[in-house]
């Protein structure tokens, strides 16, 4: 019966953690019942286990929408990631620009040179904003499909 447990664990190894143990446990129980039935019918234990494993199907049969869901979740994660990046870059560039402005006004108030590096630094959050918007656009396209 150890083989069944291993088979089930292997089959469901990539599913989300939430509810995973529960699924593995219940499926193992059900498959063991089947193996017992088959042995009762006169098959050897090995044959019974093989038959059960072969007839089980795939993880896609279990989760009809599994692939889709997983993809959606991954996309959501990426977007969240980009949002964090955007926040970080905004805070970071604000601090750097503030320092430059301070240095500029403190030492050479006559020429306002801080504008030039500031424009450069602004491209940091801008590029990340671009990425984020791009990702969102893609998501909309996919919904339309």
């Amino acid at each position, binding site marked *: 019966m150890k083989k069944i447990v291993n088979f089930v664990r292997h089959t469901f190894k990539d599913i989300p953690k939430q509810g995973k143990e529960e699924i593995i446990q219940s499926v193992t129980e059900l498959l063991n019942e089947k193996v017992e039935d088959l042995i009762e019918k006169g098959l050897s234990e090995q044959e019974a286990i093989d038959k059960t494993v072969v007839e089980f*199907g795939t993880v896609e049969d279990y989760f009809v929408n599994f692939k889709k869901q997983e993809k959606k979740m991954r996309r959501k994660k990426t977007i969240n990631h980009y949002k964090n990046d955007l926040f970080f870059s905004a805070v970071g560039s604000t601090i750097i620009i503030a320092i430059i402005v301070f240095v500029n006004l403190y030492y050479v108030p006559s020429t306002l040179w801080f504008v030039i590096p500031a424009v450069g630094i602004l491209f940091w959050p801008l590029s990340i904003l671009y990425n984020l918007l791009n990702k969102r656009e893609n998501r909309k396209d996919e919904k339309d499909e």
Partner: protein
Amino acid sequence: MINSDIIRGHLESVILKLIIEKDMYGYEISNLITERTKKRFNIKEATLYSVVGRLQKKELIDSYIGEKSHGGKRRYYKITSLGRAYYNQKLLEWIELKKVLDALLEDRK
């Protein structure tokens, strides 16, 4: 062999119907489906268990550990009153669907 995509939406009703007839355990259900359809449709265990799991989560069926007539323990499923109501609803839906498809696909001369 029927394309399993088409029948998938109706598997819940099928399983509920079998469990209404009598309390059953997992493998018994899959056996009975094969038998009743004369092997034209063969439910994969993976699909069956996911449907059963879903039904249980929706509290349409309940499970208990029971003794089989000779030997081992089995997890039997039994219908709840909610499940019965749900099945009746689904059955009406199916009858309606059958009528609609018949009306659309039947030969007209």
